[in-house]
């Protein structure tokens, strides 16, 4: 019990609302606290009236009660009009804050977001795909959201931003981060088994650091062997959410000892898992489904070099792989004379 209390003590922000980290947060928090204090006032008023009336007018033997009016149009109009005025004020502030969220600055930096069961993919303007959202500070960032399968919702509490990622349409939202650091990004629309672990990070960099990060993250093929790149890709594309590297069965079959082994499918047919089978399973997962599993996987469109890297890594996880791609080869690391990714 002590640990949760300690965490509560160090969480930084107040009791209500997390620390503010975007330009939207000021408006939202102002309105939140305005309604909060209004609510506190009215709740205390109602509570006080109830308590006082029960205290003063509860039944006592032999006490005579004077008759009171059974209606008062003036009084009733008063408690009709006051709430009407107050809710109009709340509507106005809510609408004003929402307009700011709805009107996206034309100079905003655009990042494509795709939600899929159960990972996020952020595609930067140079084509780099990353499982985390990295953004420059003090720069408007426009997110274009879509989904590969069911409805997800991108939610960054520190930025007070939420937007659904809906299959078959593009939703847009934007924010401008004001604080450097790392923040939580949740999926807020229920999307199946692993909904509650569809969580990633938002990393806010200084604008100059952001450029360096993007440069470094984009050019992985010059730094990594195919096996290393494949390992990186299956993590960043969310494959490992459903496919283990250890032989454990999760939502889908494990990657361990997949390559080179015979697979049996739900339609009764069989094949030995080779390069073509792996390619097909990634591009058209529903075409042949391994028996014992449901067809839950969304299709992935991968570049050739990404596909080759993933195949190389899956070979390295199999004891039936060709000799040159055994785990021993992978462990030798980039310092040796291993060939790097072939140029396009």
């Amino acid at each position, binding site marked *: 019990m002590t640990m949760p209390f300690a965490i509560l003590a160090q969480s930084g922000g107040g009791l209500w609302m*997390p620390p503010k980290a975007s330009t939207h947060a000021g408006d939202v928090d102002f*309105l*939140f606290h305005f*309604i909060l204090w209004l609510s506190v006032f009215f709740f205390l008023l109602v509570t006080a009236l109830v308590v006082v*009336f029960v205290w003063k007018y509860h039944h006592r033997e032999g006490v005579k009660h004077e008759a009171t009016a*059974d209606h008062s149009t003036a009084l009733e109009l008063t408690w009709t009009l006051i709430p009407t005025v107050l809710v109009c004020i709340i509507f106005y502030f*809510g609408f004003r804050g929402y307009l700011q969220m709805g009107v996206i600055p034309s100079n905003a930096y655009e990042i494509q977001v795709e939600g899929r069961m159960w990972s996020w993919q952020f595609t930067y303007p140079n084509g780099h795909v990353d499982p985390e959202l990295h953004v420059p500070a003090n720069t408007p960032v426009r997110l274009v959201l879509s989904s590969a399968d069911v409805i997800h919702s991108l939610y960054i*509490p520190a930025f007070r931003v939420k937007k659904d990622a809906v*299959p078959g349409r593009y939703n847009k939202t934007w924010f401008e981060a004001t604080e450097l650091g790392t923040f939580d990004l949740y999926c807020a629309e229920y999307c199946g088994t692993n909904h509650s672990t569809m969580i990633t990070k938002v990393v806010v960099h200084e604008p100059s650091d952001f450029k360096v990060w993007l440069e470094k993250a984009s050019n992985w093929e010059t730094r990594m062997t195919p096996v290393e790149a494949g390992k990186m890709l299956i993590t960043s594309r969310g494959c490992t959410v459903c496919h283990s590297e250890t032989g454990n069965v999760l939502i889908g079959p494990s990657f361990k000892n997949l390559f080179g082994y015979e697979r049996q499918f739900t339609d009764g047919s069989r094949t030995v898992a080779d390069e073509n089978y792996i390619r097909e399973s990634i591009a058209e997962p529903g075409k042949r489904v391994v028996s014992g599993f449901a067809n839950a996987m969304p299709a992935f469109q991968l570049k050739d070099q990404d596909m080759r890297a993933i195949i190389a890594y899956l070979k390295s996880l199999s004891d039936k792989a060709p000799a040159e791609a055994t785990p021993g080869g992978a462990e030798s690391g980039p310092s040796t004379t291993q060939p790097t990714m072939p140029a396009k």
Partner: protein
Amino acid sequence: MSAHAPAILPDLPEHGAEDNYLTHGKGILSWVFTLDHKRIGVMYMFGILFGFLVGGIFAVLLRTELLSPQPTFLRNAQASMDFYNHMFTLHGAVMVFMFIIPAIPAILGNFVLPLMLGAKDVAFPRLNLLSLHLYIIGAVFFLYILLSGALHAGFGIQLPGGFGLDTGWTFYTPYSTSKSASGVVPATMGAFIMGFSSILTGVNFIATIHMLRPRGMTWFKMPLFLWGMYATSIIQVLATPVLGITLLLLAVERAFGVGIFDPKLGGDPILYQHFFWFYSHPAVYIMILPAMAIMSELVPVFSRKHIFGYNFIAYSSIAIALFSFFVWGHHMFVSGQSNKANAVFSLLTFSVSIPSAIKVFNWIGTMYKGDIRLKTPMLYALGFILLFTLGGLTGLFLGALATDVHLTDTYFIVAHFHYVMMGSTLFAFLGGMYYWWPKIFGRMFSVKWGNISAVIIFIGFNLTFFVQFIAGSQGMPRRYATYPEKYHIYHVISTIGAYVMAVGLFMVLFNWLHSIWYGRKAAANPWGGNTLEWRTTSPPPHDNFAVAPAAEDPYELGAWQYDPKIDGWIRPDADALAARGRVD
């Protein structure tokens, strides 16, 4: 049965062979095929309370799962998350469709509404029986879902139609139509059939209130309970067919692959949300209007005062019913719905808050300079006022666009609707059950234990749900089987609160069961109400009234005097009153 209007006479035979609706007709078939609205109400009571027990067990299980971010019941992380997803879905679906929508209209409405009109039954007794049978058939589909889930989890046996239910009670597409392996088709069929039960009850109540009012009971001399039931029935009749159509389309897409909602088949998932909330937002008022209706009976009777502002309360019920049809879009502010639509829906949403505020102030006005009796029904009414106020005020955060974007789909919204659905509707339902319990079973319950359990439930409720407002504002998303460590403390408090509440609710059940076997015999009018159901015996005879009673102002309580000998209220002018009924 004596022809001499026995209802209001002070010296009823203590035990005797007097015929009442419970003893009129023997054998199980005399219940299953009864046309008596009172027996139908009692059978609904058993079915709906069973639903509440099942939904409550799921609630306790899911709160226990959330006691820590680690898996609680199952060691495998995936299986544990699936378990939680099934639990929260079944909790929601069972509580909404089997408990809270039918609870007040089907149990208390069925029992009390004809009595309040001084009538012998509802307008269409056979239709009423059909409603009950449809409810039971729908419930069988839900039980099938539970059975299929249990068989699959326990023995790996797969029943046709899928196992369990893991889509959320909202059945959002395309997850429900294209991805989930659970029993979406049986569940939607169950909800579809129960929808018809709800529609037929609504039709029946509308016809009954129009046709069977006694002479002298004009619209504005009706008890406010009837106004609330009337407003509820309008929504049931107009909105529920849309749910039926929507669920049918969903089942067709899932079973036959016809593209309606799934974009892969050329459909639109947002269309589903529009259809679904076009019913399900008004359905929120199917849940709360009957609760308000009960409140307008409890507060005046236990304050021994005329209701304050009758007309405003009556009009506000109708206003809520009408406005409820124009606010469904506020469930979809972050779905990608157009900004213009969002602005309009936000403004319209606030319009519903005003009639709700009027009612709260009018109930408080009724208590002013009253002679307040803190009996168990009144404690629930007071709890309702506080919890409904909090539930309503927190709705303001969600109606406002800018704050809704942050708070929607978090625990803030979970807390908000539990304050309205559970803190308000459940409290009014329990208050109403205690209020009419002596009339239904002819036995008194222990007011002392009733009051103690009411306080325990109130404390447990606030412990469970108040921290969820804080967790939600800090960003805790709803429907999470596991969660970041920073939200741990809120979940611990919430789960403890749920256990406290469970203890309180079992005390209520025990008090009721104890009353049936050991309770004192109840007087005809144990609380001193002036609505017509108190003018007949407790329990009422098969035909309700020996003589059709004459209607008066239902809130003019002054003529009733408390008689400690029978622990009930009597009228010195009883004979004159009965004679007037006969002449009318």
